[in-house]
């Protein structure tokens, strides 16, 4: 290995890959059966965190940053005057294995600029994955990018080696895409996504009949949208996201606050802030939809096309539906408990178990760890003292904002809970 040269390539090609925020390594079922290297059947592991606070789980690089396209929002675009580099297939294999053996990473996330054409690029990505699986007996996690325009045959093959496949929508609306990436067509990324979705369904049904069916992309598919590059509303983003979750059965949609990288006047200029708070609100909404039983129409609709910035979306919803409260924590079912501001899913679990033994009062709830400064306006429990019932939603909002003002200052300026293991985003 020529370490100096590899180091240079790593510098360029890790830098170019970093705007893809996905770093998940969970959800695969690949076990280490044959005394090979690696196992990805457990939960994902973040081996470290970057200074921007994001999880580092995979070696995330581009195979090359040469690209024939010119998408305005992308550093790799062909008109950008930057250093270009390309890894050889074997170099990526060796790097992955040496990092994995030292317990630096859970596996590889390989993406690429598009050189020659979609198929040619996809083939190279597949070669890396195939070598890792077949020559190195590697059972660690592999995430491959599906390249726009790649053929069905290649997408079929990719899923045989990869745990996860992803293809980024990037721009939430078609008109935005026309403006920022006129050479690109929605169809070019829908097609590989559709193919992978179909293969996953087929795999699942065949697996039931024939045990030896080779596994296909066990960690499913994901996508990413850039937030704040094309003037879209929160509703536009989240309705697109919901559509993709349903239509293609995605595991995850990622939201990536646009980091200005260009003087192109179609885009926010260099130096403008990354919309991190907005990104956080979108993740919270995503969480409410997937785990808390909310319907998108409850959170975003014609009257409310954008999420509140000063309060989280669950609290916004509760205040808009203040008439449904207070809720009795000793009687309400799981779904209703999960809708109370200040109570996260872990607290729901504890409440449901604890109340089998005795009725819960404020002390119990506090010890369990719910945020009373928000929850207390929305619940009753086994205590005599309650918050006055004749407050309006606006008054409650004022009280909550007041009581957590100082905390807010910190957590908002520092986005403390942004990627907080991505579990504690909402409580």
């Amino acid at each position, binding site marked *: *290995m020529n*370490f100096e040269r*590899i*180091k240079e390539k*790593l*510098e360029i090609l*890790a*830098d170019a890959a*970093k*705007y893809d925020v996905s770093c998940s390594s969970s959800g695969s079922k690949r*076990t*280490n059966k044959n*005394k*090979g*290297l*690696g*196992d990805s059947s*457990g939960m994902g*592991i*973040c*081996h*470290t*965190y*970057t*200074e*921007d*606070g*994001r*999880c580092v789980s995979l*070696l995330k*690089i581009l195979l090359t940053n040469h690209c024939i396209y010119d998408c305005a929002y992308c550093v790799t675009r062909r008109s950008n005057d930057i250093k270009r580099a390309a890894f050889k297939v074997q170099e990526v294999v060796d*790097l992955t294995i*040496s*990092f994995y*053996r*030292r*317990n*630096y990473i859970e596996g590889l996330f390989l993406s690429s600029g598009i050189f020659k054409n979609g198929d040619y690029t996809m083939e190279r990505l597949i070669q890396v994955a195939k070598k890792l699986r077949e020559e190195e*007996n590697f059972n660690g996690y592999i995430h491959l990018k599906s390249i726009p325009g790649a053929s069905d045959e290649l997408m079929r093959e990719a899923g045989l080696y990869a745990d996860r496949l992803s293809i980024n929508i990037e721009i939430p609306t078609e008109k935005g895409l026309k403006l920022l990436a006129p050479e690109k067509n929605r169809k070019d990324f829908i097609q590989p996504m559709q193919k992978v979705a179909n293969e996953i369904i087929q795999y699942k049904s065949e697996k039931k009949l024939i045990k030896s069916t080779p596994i296909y992309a066990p960690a499913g598919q994901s996508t990413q949208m850039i937030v704040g590059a094309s003037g879209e509303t929160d509703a536009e983003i989240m309705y697109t996201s919901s559509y993709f979750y349903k239509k293609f059965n995605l595991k995850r949609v990622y939201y990536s*606050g646009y*980091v*200005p990288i260009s003087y192109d006047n179609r885009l926010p200029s260099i130096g403008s802030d*990354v919309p*991190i708070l907005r990104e956080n609100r979108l993740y919270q909404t995503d969480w409410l939809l997937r785990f808390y039983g909310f319907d998108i129409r409850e959170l975003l609709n014609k009257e409310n096309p954008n999420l509140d910035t000063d309060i989280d979306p669950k609290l916004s919803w509760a205040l808009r539906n203040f008439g449904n409260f207070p809720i009795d924590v000793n009687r309400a079912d799981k779904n209703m408990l999960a809708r109370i501001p200040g109570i996260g899913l872990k607290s729901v679990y504890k*409440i449901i*178990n*604890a*109340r*089998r*033994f*005795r009725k819960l009062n404020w002390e*119990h709830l506090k*010890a*369990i760890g719910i945020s009373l400064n928000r929850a207390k306006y929305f619940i009753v429990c086994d205590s005599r003292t309650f918050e006055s019932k004749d407050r309006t939603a606006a008054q409650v909002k004022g009280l909550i904002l007041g009581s957590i003002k100082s905390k807010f200052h910190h957590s908002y300026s*520092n*986005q*403390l809970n*942004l*990627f*907080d293991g991505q579990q504690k985003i909402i409580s």
Partner: protein
Amino acid sequence: MKATTFIYDGTFEGFLTSVFEVYEKKVVYPKIMKQEHYKASFFDISEVVITDTHKADRVWKRINEIASSNAKRTIYHAFLSEQPTIENDLLYLLKKLFSTSTPKLIDKDFSDQIILKISKIVKMVDREKHRMDAFVRFKLTLDNIYTAIIEPDFNVLPLNSVHFKNRYADQKWLIYDSRRKYGVFYNLIEIQTVEIEFFNNIALDKIAKEYLCPNEDAFQVLWKQYFDSTNIVSRKNLKLHIKHVPKRYWKYLVEKRGV
């Protein structure tokens, strides 16, 4: 009435033996304490417990018969926390377990202060275990052993070894807890618990270069390069960074220490 303190050797078997003795001798105010924490006092009633696998097995078997698998896990993981009064908290839990009509639910009574406390301790232990899964950084030695030294807050190494065995089935590896002075070594067949004088009190990561593979440094340089290049400067958030990677762990981490 005076409490009777059972002093044991610090092992899990020793603890279970102590529980056995508490019941066998029908002690009304029992306490269980590690040898190393015990300070004799004139007024104490104390008894030294001799670890007895047979007695320990009987207690563990009884626990197995009635407790849920999660409760068993809770007991063992809480024990590994080495918290000063954990034995007494666990004794409280066990007493409840042996007397309640709903033993399967015993670890889920989050409105019981001590049970809640134990569940929080388990959470801390599990987090530390998970951190070690993440923060172990192997270095390849000349004799082809991927070697790491750790100093976890709790005694989690027994919990980590299964994870590492599944993952690194085709390489020899050694993880040494230099605080507790023992390690686990995987020899391509099985895991062995080892004590190596050389590693005791060795400053973390001070495995001298002459013991390491000639390329070892170069890989660390590459990893550091990757770590720096994957960072987005305009999103810098050191507070969040430190929250996830608390400073006391930096000494393990190639990317935080430099090479």
